[in-house]
């Protein structure tokens, strides 16, 4: 498992290779790359600055990677989240999961992305022609996270 916060870009192919190199038990690798878009909600975006809570961000992501590993039989997980100033087209985040079979790889990647969107301590500030503005959290993202609470963790076990 590999969690990194960095200003620099990442290389999807290198990260996938790292998960599979020299082993023959991996049958499935799912990746998700989040990319800075040039417009949101109709407005043009010149750039975006990602602020994070150093120390907490790493620890929180690590904790959720461990939870993903407890839920699904994963053979490898990589999460890389960038911070700092990004322009449209720049990569923001990479989640890559390796497993024997596709269902686990997909489920773990979606779980981690839903988590990162709503619980990892990152905040996006967009630069628009009319000025800068912090991105508001989306209720749809909270709803997406909630679906993981129900089937795998009965309320009594919390």
């Amino acid at each position, binding site marked *: 498992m590999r969690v990194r916060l960095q200003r620099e870009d990442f290389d999807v192919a290198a990260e996938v290779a790292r998960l599979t190199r020299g082993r023959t038990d991996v049958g499935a690798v799912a990746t998700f790359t989040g990319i800075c878009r040039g417009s949101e909600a109709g407005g043009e975006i010149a750039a975006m600055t990602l602020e994070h809570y150093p120390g907490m961000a790493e620890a929180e992501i690590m904790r959720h990677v461990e939870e993903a590993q407890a839920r699904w039989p994963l053979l490898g997980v990589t999460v890389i*989240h960038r911070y700092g100033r990004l322009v449209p087209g720049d990569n923001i985040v990479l989640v890559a999961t390796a497993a024997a079979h596709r269902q686990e790889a997909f489920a773990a990647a979606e779980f981690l992305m839903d988590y990162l969107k709503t619980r990892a*301590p990152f905040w996006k500030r967009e630069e628009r022609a009319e000025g800068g503005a912090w*991105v508001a959290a989306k209720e749809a993202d909270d709803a997406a996270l909630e679906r993981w609470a129900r089937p795998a963790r009965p309320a009594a076990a919390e």
Partner: protein
Amino acid sequence: MKILYFAWVRERVGKPEEELDLPAGVRTVAELMGWLAGRGEEYAHAFENPKVIRAAIDRTHVRPDAALAGAREIAFFPPMTGG
């Protein structure tokens, strides 16, 4: 106690962090937000709607009723928008 602010909470307060001695009556996260809101205009603005502000004690998410006892570091920030 070390107090950290992020995103627009940081911008409104005007600093990323500070070291404060809390009065004895401030025992929970909610009470701390109330106390901070009384420290001046910039704090009042930052904490004018405490319901939308999230908190972490020692780098773990907590609810407003969480106790401050034993905490080394508490952080206040808006809902997260990573990913």
